C-alpha cells in the first residue's frame, strides 16, 4: 500500500525471457504495461472487449486478451509477445510461413494470429484445416479473408525454403 492511499502490488514476471520487477496498481491492464511501460508495441489494442485477438499474448504458453487482463495476473509467470518469437535474429518458422504464404496485409492482427497459431501448433503439430479454423476463430482479420492465414499455419515447416 503506497502512502498516497492507492494500492500497489509487486509484479515480478518475465517477458520474452527478460525478468522484470515492477509495481502495478490493481487496475493496470497487462496490455498497457507491456506497451507503455516496457515499450513493446507489437501487441495491439483494437476492440478492447476480448473479441478480436489483436492484443493476444501468451501467459505461461496460453493465449489471453491482454486488453482485459489485469497486469497483476502475470505474477511469477512467463509472458511471450510477438517481439519474443524470433531468436538470435532469426524469425520463428510461423513468422516465416506467414511471409511465404502471404498471411497478412496491414499486419495489425498478425501478432495475435502468430501467437495463437503457436499455441495451436504446440498442442497439435499437424492440425487439419478444420482444426485450424476452429482454433483461430477468435482472431479477427479485416484484410486477408483468412484463406491465406489458414494456408500459412498449415504450411509451417513445410516451405521449400525452410
Amino acid at each position: 500500500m503506497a502512502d498516497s492511499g492507492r494500492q500497489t502490488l509487486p509484479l515480478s514476471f518475465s517477458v520474452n525471457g527478460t525478468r522484470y520487477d515492477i509495481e502495478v496498481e490493481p487496475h493496470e491492464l497487462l496490455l498497457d504495461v507491456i506497451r507503455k511501460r516496457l515499450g513493446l508495441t507489437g501487441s495491439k489494442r483494437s476492440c478492447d472487449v476480448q473479441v478480436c485477438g489483436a492484443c493476444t499474448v501468451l501467459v505461461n504458453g496460453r493465449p489471453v486478451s491482454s486488453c482485459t487482463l489485469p497486469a497483476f495476473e502475470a505474477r511469477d509467470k512467463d509472458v511471450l509477445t510477438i517481439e519474443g518469437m524470433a531468436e538470435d535474429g532469426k524469425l520463428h518458422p510461423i513468422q516465416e510461413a506467414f511471409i511465404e504464404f502471404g498471411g497478412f496485409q496491414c499486419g495489425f492482427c498478425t501478432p495475435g494470429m502468430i501467437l495463437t497459431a503457436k499455441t495451436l501448433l504446440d498442442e497439435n503439430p499437424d492440425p487439419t484445416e478444420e482444426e485450424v479454423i476452429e482454433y483461430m476463430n477468435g482472431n479477427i482479420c479485416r484484410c486477408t479473408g483468412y484463406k491465406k492465414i489458414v494456408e500459412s499455419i498449415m504450411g509451417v515447416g513445410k516451405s521449400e525454403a525452410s
Partner: protein
Amino acid sequence: MLRPFRLEEPDSVKAASESLARYGDSAKIYAGGTELLLAMKEGLVHFECLVNVKKIPGLDGIDLDNGNVRIGALSTHRQLERSETLQEKLPVLVEMERNVANLRVREVGTLGGNLTFAEPHADPGTLLLALDAAVVAQKAGGSREIPMTEFFVDAYDAAVEEDEVLTEIVVPLPAANAAVRYRKFGYLERPSAGVALHVMADARRESVQDVRVAVGCVGPKSMRVEEAEAVLRGKSLEEAAQRMAEAGDIAGRAGDAISDLHGSAEYKEHIVKVLLTRAFNDIRAELAG
C-alpha cells in the same frame, strides 16, 4: 478505461465472504474478470474493491462422487473442455464448453462466473438445467445447495447473495438409457438461442420415461419448460417425435423471447422449435444405436 480499485486476495471462502460482507455494495467477487472487467471498463458499474477468489485453494477440481460430477466453480471453460473425466462421463458438457466464446475467454473465464453473471446470452446454464444440476454457495455462516431451477432470477440476477461464494456445480450423471443434447444458434459473438434436452428412455428404449427441456438466450433467463416436457413424457419415442413440433411451440413461447439485435421474438421462437426437434432426433438416434 478501468478506474482504480482495491484488490483483496483472501485464501479461504470464509475470509472472502467476510470481506464481501464488510464492503457491502462496493465490493464484488473477481474470478476470471471476463464479464466484470468489461462492465467496469465500459463504466456500467464500479466497485471500490474486487475480491480475487483465485487464491482460495480447491475450487477448481473436477471429481466424480457417488453418481455426480462435482465441478469447482473456478474451473475455466478451457479446463472443462480438456477434462478427461468429463470427456468420458459427460461429453455433452465438453461439447457445449468447446463452443463457448473464443479461446482466450475460455482460457480465463470460469463456469462459476458465467453462471453468477446470469447474462442471458450464455450456454452453460441452459444445459445444466436440463441435467438437473445444482450449485453450492458458501459464506462465512455455512453453505447451501441451490437447484439450477431456482438459480436464475432474471437477466443479470442470480440467487447468490452478496457475501456468498459459488464453490461447486453438482451434476448428476445421466443414466445409461438416457441421452442429452445442447443445441445453439447464433451469428453474433454470443449465442442467440440455446436449447437443452435430456431424455431418459425405458429399459427397452422404446418410450420416454422422463424428459427435461430447457431454453436459454431468447429471453431474460434460461428456464425449464415443464409444459413442453408433459407433451413428451410417457410417449413412445415414435409418438414423441411426432409431437416435437407441439412441444417446440410451447418451449418457444415459454422462453419469453424478446426482440433485440439477435432477432425478433417470433424468429427466436421458431429457432427454439427447430433446435429442439434436432436435439430430439439426435437423441433418438443415439438411443436406437
